[in-house]
């Protein structure tokens, strides 16, 4: 338990110090995205990595958070700090109501159902033009403000987004090592045995689905208020796949792995500017290679790899 706390403090220190190192350069902007994507990846990972339930529609919940916040503040001039929790609450209720019937499905069927759900949400963003501005997007979303500070620069946005991201990380770490987290992992390993132990698997799945949707909604609100412009294209099926890739690359069931996956997938295209349009190929290849050769993700794969190398060397030395 204390080790978890230490890990978290070390990680927080790193996050807080990063701007000093990058000195507000261009990379700061990218790191804001890493923060948002970390939240999203953790949200999905709670569902996929811990409870073992797949979703290919989480971009939809991300988008709902962004659009609810965006429309309420830009069109109806709400206070963003009021719009954000309201958006999260609405998304939570929607996710709960949809989760009840949908999470009865298993495996491939659940994947298809959530995929369909994500696409329906995406179509609604595109078609309710009066409200969302349709495919051309919604602009004029205000920045967040707190105590006279407007979060309008990269550095300020960085600290804003990362304070939320750190809270989500702490939240997820606590959850993972608790009664509920254990029950989730138990459902993942053997649903029938978990139920025999008194775990209401069905309700638990719906709860975690709802929680992960709420986290995605929060990330969406932050996205809307730091970008000040949103368009449906950011919330489509491809983004759901991107999220899935982050979680799988980082490591299913690892909170810090989600950060790693989010960071890698956000930074990689930045370094591969030339490969701009072709990042989709890289995602596809990465997904397949990870599942085939490193099903535990980077957080487990890298240590295993080094162990193997060391063992190999020792073995060679002994022989």
């Amino acid at each position, binding site marked *: 338990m204390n080790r978890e706390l230490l890990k978290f403090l070390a990680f927080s220190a790193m996050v807080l110090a990063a701007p000093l190192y990058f000195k507000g350069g261009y990379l700061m902007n990218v790191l804001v995205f890493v923060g948002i994507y970390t939240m999203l990846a953790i949200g999905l990972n709670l569902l996929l990595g811990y409870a073992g339930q797949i979703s290919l529609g989480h971009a939809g919940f991300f988008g709902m958070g962004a659009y609810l916040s965006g429309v309420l503040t830009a069109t109806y001039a709400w206070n963003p700090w009021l719009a954000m929790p309201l958006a999260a609450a609405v998304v939570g209720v929607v996710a709960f109501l949809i989760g009840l019937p949908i999470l009865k499905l298993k495996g491939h069927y659940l994947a298809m159902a959530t995929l369909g759900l994500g696409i329906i949400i995406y179509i609604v963003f595109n078609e309710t033009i009066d409200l969302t501005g349709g495919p051309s997007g919604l602009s004029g979303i205000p920045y967040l403000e707190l105590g006279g500070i407007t979060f309008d620069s990269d550095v300020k946005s960085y600290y804003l987004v990362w304070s939320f991201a750190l809270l989500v990380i702490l939240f997820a770490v606590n959850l993972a090592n608790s009664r509920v987290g254990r029950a989730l992992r138990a459902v993942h390993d053997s649903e029938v045995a978990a139920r025999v132990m008194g775990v209401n698997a069905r309700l638990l799945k719906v709860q975690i689905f709802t929680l992960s949707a709420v986290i995605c909604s929060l990330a969406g609100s932050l996205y809307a208020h730091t970008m000040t412009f949103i368009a449906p294209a950011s919330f489509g099926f491809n983004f759901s796949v991107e999220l899935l890739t982050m979680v799988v690359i980082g490591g299913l069931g690892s909170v810090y792995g989600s950060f790693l996956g989010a960071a890698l997938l956000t930074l990689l295209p930045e370094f591969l500017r030339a490969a701009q349009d072709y990042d989709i190929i890289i995602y596809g290849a990465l*997904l397949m290679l990870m599942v085939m050769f490193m099903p535990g993700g980077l957080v487990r794969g890298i240590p295993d790899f080094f162990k193997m190398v060391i063992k190999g060397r020792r073995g060679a030395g002994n022989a």
Partner: protein
Amino acid sequence: MLFDQILQYCLSGLSTGAIYGLIGVGFSIIFNATGIINFAQGEFVMLGGMLTLLFLETLALPLWAAIPCAIAASMVAGLLFERLAIRPLRQPTPINLVIITIGGSILIRGLAMLAWGKDTHALPPFSGNDPISILGATILPQHIWILVVTVFIVAVNRFYFYHTISGKAMRACAYNRRAAGLVGIDVRRMVLFSFVISSALGSIAGLIVAPLTMTSYDVGIMLGLKGFCAAIIGGMSSGIATVIGGLLLGILESLGAGLISSGYKDAIAFIILLLILVIRPQGLFGKAESERV
């Protein structure tokens, strides 16, 4: 007036529906042989159209030669996909299979983009473009091609599954893979077969619809998903039920687009998909079965 319109919508819905049905049969064949929902199924539909184009324009083959070449090439792609992505999987859990077929799907899509760019391409219709008028509604010769090919494929399918050794072996795998293995059926080969056959079906669907709808590297997602929807309506049957599911979906979609709103056309399929998955996961025509354990 309204009647004419509705008839028109139904007729055009019928041909897109037939396409969904063919794609759905592809889903079902793999699902029945392996328990896998192949998320890359739609990409073989895309390959059907794009490869035909490749043989037709880049290699300047006549249409009658380009089509079999495209189907054969898609089958090779399906074979490679099974060999390189599915078979080596060490932990074939449903989640891993979903992830790997999604990975495969976007990889294929990405490679297609790399090869053919992002433009949409048109395939010439098989026999002219002169509209035919039926009871006041008009259809194109290509629509007829689609319906004829679909009927033909359903018949061939039926023959294969019920009157050939390999087809019967495939059905045995669908009922009980372990038992099939015990009586000497090479289950792994049947799995491979199922991927090859469904990529053939997918590519046929893709190349007969391409003259109507144009084709590009990313048509596979939507067509694939709607094909899956057809298969779900048909209770994952690898026969006529899925084709009927497809026709139903095509007509509903076409009516919805015409009478309600074209923007929500795609949403119709997914709402149906969700409703059926939640309310009647065994399909519209199947009887309730106890869960397969």
